[in-house]
């Protein structure tokens, strides 16, 4: 109880100070709004469904990109982890492409797909490949060599080795990779929306700014924060309840 109180004391004090300062200043601003107005705007946006529609658009793009990019990263990570020769041969290609910031591909994706979901999904997919690839590769490479020796003695084909030994062993860590990739996907989706794409939460926020509705703008900001936080907590809970026993201490961020 005291821990909870301590946790919310500072933000509550800051919000109160902001409220008093804004009310005392009196004049209306294009950039800031009293916290009570922001709370009211958030409630209104949630009530009329606008916020939920925007959230659905952002989440759909993030999940779509995650499915494609995460899938590519997963397959490449499995391959590179199981066959070190492939990892070594593709090292320079991966090292060359990976440092490109996903947002640098926005203009290219824009002329390829135009505005809309496909643009956003493509950018998110590119960004989601790398965390998935790196962590899956490490997870597969960490598979107990004795288990693989047994598989070799039993002459299991590669597919069976992957399905019966590697994937079950690496699955908990791959879930950690998925959680991190999901965070990246959400961030990139919002970024693409703020930069160019007329969709979702980022666009809602940009529109509120451009039409000088600071309370709405800040309400979007707060909601984006809450949504990201809650989804992360949800995935952490899943990770702990489903895979907690199987994760070594070091792999439990």
């Amino acid at each position, binding site marked *: 109880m005291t821990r909870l109180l301590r*946790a919310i004391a500072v933000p509550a004090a800051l919000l109160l100070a902001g409220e008093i300062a804004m009310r005392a200043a009196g004049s209306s601003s294009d950039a800031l709004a009293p916290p009570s107005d922001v709370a009211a705007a958030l409630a209104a946006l949630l009530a009329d469904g606008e916020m939920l529609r925007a959230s659905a658009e952002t989440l759909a793009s993030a999940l779509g990109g995650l499915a494609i990019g995460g899938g590519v990263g997963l397959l490449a990570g499995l391959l590179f982890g199981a066959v070190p020769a492939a990892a070594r*041969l593709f090292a320079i290609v991966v090292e060359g492409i990976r*440092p490109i910031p996903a*947002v*640098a591909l926005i203009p*290219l994706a824009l002329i390829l797909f135009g505005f809309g979901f496909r643009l956003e999904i493509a950018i998110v997919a590119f960004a989601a490949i790398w965390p998935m690839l790196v962590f899956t590769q490490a997870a597969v490479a960490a598979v107990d060599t004795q288990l693989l020796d047994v598989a070799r003695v039993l002459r299991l084909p590669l597919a069976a080795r992957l399905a019966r030994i590697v994937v079950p062993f690496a699955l908990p860590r791959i879930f950690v990779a998925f959680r991190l990739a999901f965070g990246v996907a959400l961030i990139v989706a*919002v970024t693409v929306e703020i930069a160019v794409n007329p969709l979702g939460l*980022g666009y809602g926020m940009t529109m509120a700014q451009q039409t000088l509705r600071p309370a709405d703008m800040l309400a*979007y*900001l707060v909601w984006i924060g809450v949504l990201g936080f809650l989804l992360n907590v949800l995935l952490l809970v899943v990770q702990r309840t489903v895979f907690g026993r199987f994760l070594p201490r070091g792999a439990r961020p």
Partner: protein
Amino acid sequence: MSARRWAWRAGSVLVCIALVLAWQAVADARLVSPVFLPPPDKVWRALQRGMASGVLLQKLGGTVLRMIEGWAVASLLGVGLGTLVGASHTARAWLGPTLEFLRPLPASAIIPVAIALFGLSDAMVLGVIGFGALWPMLLATVHGFAAVEPRLYEVSRALGLSRAAVVWKVALPSALPDILAGARLGLTVALVLAGVCEMLAGRDGLGQWILLSARSFRAPDLYAGVVLFGVLGYASALLIGAVERRALRWRG
């Protein structure tokens, strides 16, 4: 062993060359419209032309400067604030949960707020990059301080070190690996935000260059810009890696 490593490296280079040649073949055969996929030789020429005329070089310089400026501000603030919060157990207990709550917030979400506050100006760009790159550094510093071996604190107490001395001589060096990991992430964030801000605010830089190239369908110029973004990301990772190796040599 080393000879074998070089052999793999050479093989890796060959794979890379093969892929570029395949790209060239696909583009030359017009399997994909050159508007979307220009052949690599044209991209290379666009890169050379842009560098020789100084236009692309100037854009690159603008982005590098913006990124470094914002990152430097963020580093100073992040390590400074992180030290203040991390060095005191009380501050950690009171502020820690708030910082954890803000961690997953996308840094780009602050852009509309910054535009409302500062307009489409350089101050806005600096504010966004500084704010965005601040978090990884701040959180890493706080985490680094929290993870200091407790016995080191006991020893310093036994030696009668002042609080400042403990921070400077024990806690900061011990938190250095975390801080450098935060600096690495911060640099990546700075590059991303510099690119986005240049696109949005039309500041002179690579972000603006690739957006304008795309709008006028100059695909080789667009690809040249994307390549430079990649080079910039790679170079900054190398730089931080070198700093890490030097600064952490004492840990063996």
